């Protein structure tokens, strides 16, 4: 099958290739193999234990007519787009401010990045307390004498997503800032000198010159943040447990709940297959832009 020219390529760097075999084997079996197994079993009526009695698209039909799943998807869209926009805009703005050769930059950078060192569980619990109407912000402001003050997003089905968003932004913005700052530091000083000579205002330089130059950083940030959003689980569990009602449900919670609580593996697999699909929808364009682009360019 292989031409002689190809063959020599196969045997080039043989040591490195042998060393990579365990890793390739792992990713083939663990990632690819198990993913395919999950997709296959999502077409069965498996309950507590996997059984290969195929039922076609039944699980998917049930999934897409389940209001909890539909609410989860809608929440993910709203939460995802808002959190994507806000983390990137705020992260970039903070990075730009950091990049103005300010005093105590290290201190500020550490403070900004600190929330990222906390797990989502801790973040969720902290913000659950901060937003708790009796002990948190509302309680404190009322304690100051403003009796009618109301700020209780976590118990209002219409506002609960924004309560989650506040916590997610607090946790994630510092990380995006660090990525952006690294990108900004990678910009050659000569470019700044050139734009200054041309008399282009600083804000315009950022938008017209710097941001396009930072495209790879933006794309990496986008993928990291987007993948984090799709697998969002622990923050919601810690902060709201999906409530009030089903108002802050997310797909990962649905998967867990149907696989383990409802003892309905088939339904859980169908939902996780949909999640895999959405991760692929995020990843494939990125892979194309990152790797496909280079081949042609």
């Amino acid at each position, binding site marked *: 099958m292989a031409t002689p020219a190809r063959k020599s390529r196969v045997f080039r760097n043989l040591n490195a290739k042998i060393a990579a075999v365990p890793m390739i084997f792992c990713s083939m079996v663990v990632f690819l193999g198990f993913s395919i197994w999950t997709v296959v079993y999502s077409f069965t009526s498996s309950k507590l234990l996997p059984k290969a009695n195929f039922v076609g698209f039944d699980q998917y039909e049930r999934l897409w007519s389940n209001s909890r799943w539909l609410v989860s998807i809608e929440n993910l869209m709203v939460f995802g787009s808002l959190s994507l926009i806000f983390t990137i805009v705020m992260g970039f703005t903070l990075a730009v401010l950091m990049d103005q050769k300010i005093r105590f930059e290290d201190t500020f950078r550490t403070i900004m990045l600190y929330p990222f060192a906390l797990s989502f569980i801790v973040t969720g619990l902290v913000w659950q307390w901060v937003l708790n109407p009796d002990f948190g912000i509302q309680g404190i402001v009322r304690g100051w004498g403003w009796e009618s003050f109301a700020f209780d997003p976590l118990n209002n089905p219409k506002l609960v997503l924004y309560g989650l968003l506040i916590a997610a932004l607090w946790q994630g913005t510092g990380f995006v800032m660090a990525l952006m700052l690294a990108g900004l530091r990678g910009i050659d000083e000569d470019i700044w000198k050139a734009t200054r000579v041309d008399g282009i205002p600083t804000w315009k330089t950022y938008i017209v010159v710097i941001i396009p130059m930072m495209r790879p950083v933006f794309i990496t940030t986008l993928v990291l943040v987007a993948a984090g959003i799709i697998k969002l689980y622990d923050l919601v569990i810690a902060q709201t447990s999906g409530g009030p*009602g089903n*108002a802050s449900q997310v797909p990962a919670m649905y998967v867990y709940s*149907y696989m383990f609580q*409802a*003892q*309905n593996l088939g*339904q859980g697999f169908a939902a996780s297959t949909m999640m895999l699909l959405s991760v692929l929808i995020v990843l494939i364009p990125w892979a194309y832009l990152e790797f496909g682009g280079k081949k042609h360019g």
Partner: protein
Amino acid sequence: MKNFKLAAGLLLSVALPSGAFATDLEITHWWTSGGEAAAVAEFAKAFDATGDKWVDGAIAGGGDTARPVMISRITGGDPMAATQFNHGQQAMELVEAGLMLDLTDVATAEGWKDKVFPPSLLDACTLDGKIYCAPVNIHSPEWLWLNNKVYTDLGLPVPANWAEFVASAPQVEAAGKVPLALGNQPWQSNLAFGAITVGVGGLDLWKKVNVDKDMDAAAGPEMAAVFQAAADARKLAAKSTVQDWNQATNMVITGEAAGQIMGDWAQGEFAVAGKVAGTDYTCLPGLGMNAYLSTGGDAFYFPKLADPEKEAAQKRLAALLVSPEAQVAFNLKKGSLPIRGDIDMSTANDCMKKGLEILASGNLLPTGDMVWSPDVQTQAGDLMVEFWKTDMSAADAQAKWVEILKTGL
């Protein structure tokens, strides 16, 4: 306080002397609230006194959190020696897959068939004529718990049934109290709905829908009235923002809320808080409308282990859990009803006596866990929590509910 009691129980289990052929058994359960931990410590004490050792594996967060952990440990090849489940369909597939120890010989030796009352409890443990679990208590979810002081402070009589409770709710609300406390977790909404079905719709309707699985009755006008009653009830619970059931019970204990629909396990919380049934709080089985109890409850299952010594100890534990002494000690602390009719429960309080009377009269029905699979129960929970926390119309909820029940036919 909770942890302290648990720690004290554990300490006790370590301090007690152990015999020559002592075997350590790890037992998992989700009894972590104050009253529950006190009750399970009674089992641990009794088991340790026999010379074996009870290694406590409490999993906090309620059954919905604990069961996935238990099931993945059993299916994943790291089984504990014994584990709590609600008897019914929760562990059925594990039994079918041959992962559970057959207890038939223990049951025969101890004469469970004659002693366990009502017999339906043992039926729920039986598959193909073999017994796979040891029932330990009867819990019925259809109770309304009321704080008497809330009503006497307002100069109102304490409601005697659900209809009076609803009628008095506006005055309770006007006094700045929450009429009905309800935790945010799906199973609690499902439980409240089930209790309203029995209380408002009556036993015949409940049986027609849940036992005979008559879908026309489920979609019919009688059920529509139940949904309407639930829709009215959710307005009373609108200001209740807690998550766990014991937090909601605590709202009733402290007088922040007037009432709660919760199973009889709530009684353990009242007892731990030092409240007296009849004077401080009132309990209304079947919501005071229809005096029926469902015979749900807890049972212990024993996963198969390779070690014959452990298997012998598992059987010793199974026999002990059903024994009269352990039953009395455990159930008095837990506030649940014992699974055998031949023991002396004269020290039981007012509420438990009401339960025992209903039990003796035979006004019993199975629980949702017995007649529906966990899949249906989870879906119904999802629907109910949405129904209770949003303004979904009663008719929409009923239509969706019927669809869910149909997946379990």
